[in-house]
């Protein structure tokens, strides 16, 4: 039972409060999903539950936040540790020990749980979270999904009544995300734990939640999913489709939507989806031939053949560890293939002098701030002009186009994740590299920012760039990509036009396609277009 009683919170260096006069109650045993655009105060709300706000962040908190009667006013986060389990966004940075078992026991050690009880609870949590096989493993050798499950398990051992998670699936591939969400679902059902989670990828979590808290401009609206989703500006494709088709009650899960779908199917029967116009000028930008890459005796890429054409947006998919990142790094010349050839416009990127690489191939890393070097956006843009050898002001003009709200004197690290991604993209695009590589560009981005990024990428592709993005975001792929390449175990297992590849795959199919399979509809936009024609 979590109570927010007239809560207003303001960070000490900001004039406007992030949360304003919030009154909210989250009943016991509920799985509540917290929604809101970037900067709407989601993270602040979550951290106020266990007292990290304001004990850790500073700032001024008025009103009372209490969890099962314990107020955060007179309890430090450590004094709520037995009541509230908090899982931060990046589980790896939050790990204190180095082995799975020790990490699971850490909270209990701090709380002074008797050794015999600890031993038993660790065994229980290993089973509950499906970690038995991994108990002796060092944490850094686990995959993203396994790490996330350890992070959840490690707070569960303290037997908290409330579990708070900040974007638990943002870094995970669709399969691993399913695993994590399924375990959360089980916790709520079997143990009656109250779960509060924030997540940008609604399409993954919507079906599991009991209630939704929508944060807008420091205020909160709450209700059941089907009720709140009627009007919510933030919604997954299944909701958009339901609203478009006028389904009532609004289906939240794929299963419900599929049951409501027959009339829509009938309506769409004589239409075929509009697919992205692949540019007619098939000018090859990059080609990989029989590419092998290995660390020592472990091969990561095994005989990859791939061609990338101008005007194409190619999505590179596959589970964590399938070799996607390595492939991007080989393409950009950061890593040397052990066999095979990489040619970008006929040139090997590794043969280019340092200053010239950017004019052939640009790489936007997963952590965009790795690219930044200046202390303000203004100087960053100037430095970028020099690096890209383009006219002064080019980068700034690009940024003004993509993110007009960003001010010159902001520190690049203070930008939101979406803005950082756009700034990094501007720095790279300023040099006009024919081949553009992006590693997980939508991690942590909300829907509006994602849409923005999508528009920018489509624009770049139309102006003749070839874009390759490694991503786990199936909805993004459905909307943007002209071609999908799926990797598994260092090999390319599927390579073809987007609709053909993703509608075939249970793991990588977007929601629309899951609802309307076997027809090859993949986005709500396509359906809206078809319905307009139907009406006309």
């Amino acid at each position, binding site marked *: 039972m979590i109570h927010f009683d007239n809560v207003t919170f303001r960070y000490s260096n900001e004039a406007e409060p992030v949360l304003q006069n919030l009154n909210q109650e989250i009943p016991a045993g509920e799985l509540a999903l917290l929604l809101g655009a970037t900067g709407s105060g989601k993270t602040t709300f979550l951290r106020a539950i266990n007292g990290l706000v304001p004990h850790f962040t500073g700032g001024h908190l008025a009103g009372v936040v209490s969890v099962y009667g314990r107020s955060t006013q007179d309890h430090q986060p450590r004094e709520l540790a037995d009541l509230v389990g908090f899982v931060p966004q990046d589980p790896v*940075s939050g790990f204190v020990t180095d082995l799975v078992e020790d990490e699971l026991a850490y909270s209990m050690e701090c709380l002074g749980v008797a050794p015999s009880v600890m031993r038993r609870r660790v065994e229980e949590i290993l089973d509950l979270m499906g970690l038995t096989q991994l108990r002796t*493993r060092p944490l850094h*050798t686990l995959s993203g999904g396994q790490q996330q499950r350890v992070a959840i398990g490690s707070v569960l051992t303290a037997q908290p009544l409330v579990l708070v998670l900040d974007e638990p699936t943002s870094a995970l591939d669709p399969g691993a995300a399913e695993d994590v969400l399924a375990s959360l679902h089980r916790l709520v059902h079997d143990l009656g734990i109250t779960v509060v989670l924030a997540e940008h990828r609604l399409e993954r979590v919507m079906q599991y939640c009991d209630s939704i808290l929508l944060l807008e401009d420091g205020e909160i609206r709450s209700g059941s999913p089907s009720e709140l989703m009627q009007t919510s500006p933030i919604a997954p494709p299944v909701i958009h489709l339901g609203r478009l088709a006028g389904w009532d009650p609004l289906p939240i899960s794929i299963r419900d939507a599929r049951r409501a779908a027959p009339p829509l199917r009938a309506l769409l029967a004589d239409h075929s989806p509009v697919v992205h116009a692949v540019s007619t000028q098939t000018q090859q930008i990059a080609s990989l031939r029989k590419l092998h890459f290995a660390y020592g005796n472990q091969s990561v890429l095994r005989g990859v053949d791939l061609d990338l054409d101008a005007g194409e947006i190619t999505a590179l998919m596959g589970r964590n*560890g399938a070799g996607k990142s390595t492939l991007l790094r080989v393409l950009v010349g950061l890593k040397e293939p052990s066999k095979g050839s990489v040619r970008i416009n006929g040139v090997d990127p590794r043969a280019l002098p340092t200053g010239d690489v950017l004019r052939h191939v640009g790489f936007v890393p997963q952590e965009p701030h790795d690219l930044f070097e200046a202390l303000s956006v203004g100087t960053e843009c100037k430095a970028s002009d020099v690096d890209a050898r383009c006219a002064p002001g080019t980068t700034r003009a690009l940024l003004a186009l993509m993110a007009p709200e960003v001010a010159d004197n902001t520190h690049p690290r203070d930008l939101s994740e979406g803005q950082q991604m756009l700034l990094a993209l501007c720095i790279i695009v300023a040099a006009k590299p024919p081949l553009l590589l992006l590693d997980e560009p939508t991690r942590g981005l909300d829907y509006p920012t994602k849409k923005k990024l999508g528009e920018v990428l489509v624009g770049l592709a139309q102006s003749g760039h070839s874009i390759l993005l490694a991503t786990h975001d199936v909805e993004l792929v459905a909307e943007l990509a002209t071609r999908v390449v799926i990797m598994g175990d260092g090999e390319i297992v599927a390579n073809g036009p987007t609709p053909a590849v993703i509608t075939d795959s249970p793991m990588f199919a977007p929601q629309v396609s899951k609802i309307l399979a076997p027809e090859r509809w993949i986005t709500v936009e396509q359906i809206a277009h078809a319905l307009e024609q139907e009406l006309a």
Partner: protein
Amino acid sequence: MIARWLHPCAWWLWSLSLAAGASQTTNPLLLALLICSAVIVVASRKPQAPWGKSFNFFLLLGAMIITIRVLFQLIFGAGMGTTILIELPGISLPDWMNGLRIGGSVTLEALLGAFYDGLRIATIAIVVGAANSLASPTRLLKAIPTAFYELGVSIVVALTFIPQLTADAERIRGMRRLRGKNTKGVRGFASLGLPVLAGALDRSIILAESMDSRGYGRHRAETTVGRRISIGLVLTSLSLAIIGTYALLTASVSAMTAFLILGTGVLLGGVTLWRAGLTRVRTVYRPDTWALPEYLVSAAGVCVLGIFLIAHSQVSQALVLTPELNNWPVLPLWGLIAFTVACTPALSSPRPPDLNSDVDAELRVEVRT
């Protein structure tokens, strides 16, 4: 023997004993044997964990110590011996800087002496490095007294940050290069400092938050009386220790009395620590056991030290070697015995658990990228 972690204290006892033994001699043969035993034990019992990889670094450090020591001797060292190898251009220094020299004649004896001395320091470093790679730092943390727990945590966290920092620097350097930046040279290196530091700071804040939300630093409330007793104990034990040390050094009272005062101070200090531990609520999950292998490993170390100390007290010719051309180092029988004993942990200790038995290769690789 079932694979398990040996108690970290056993490894440290073994290693520190070897180090203490090494400090007793300049005989290069004995020192080389000690290094060999460290290499043999590490090679057979090194875990496949991050800390297991640090031994090569310590070997390198040893080589560096010897090189630097010899170089210094070459340039600055005081001349001794008569076998002149080369004549370097020298500067004659004023009389009051007697004993110091820059350049001048380099003698074989002086170089040999420097080499022996460097080898001794290198041996100590390598032997300590062996324990560092054999014993998990976090498991060592479990064994330290509760009162020091917080201090220990900060040290361990700092240690785990170093590999992360190098990984960050490498990644950012790669990105910079793609941007067309020059990442070579001092300037290129310096430009990495700020982003790497910013990343480390971000990470440490997340870690601190995570630790706090998981109950780190919780302790029982102490009563006012209890707190006053604690403060009194700390002050008394410190004062007694200082007075005792002073008395011992100045010999103003009998050594017996001085020892008594010092001893009482230390004892009270122990009580203070024990009391401080009481206010902590912390418990330990699966503490390491101290069984036969632990006794064997630490006994091996203690025996080696014992042999060296006995040799030292007998003023063994083999221990201290005068660096002269015709004075070849000898290897006494007891040296070989010590070497054999020092190597026994390679057999008497259990194998460390295989951490990566079921990691698929691809994932391990992804972690490294």
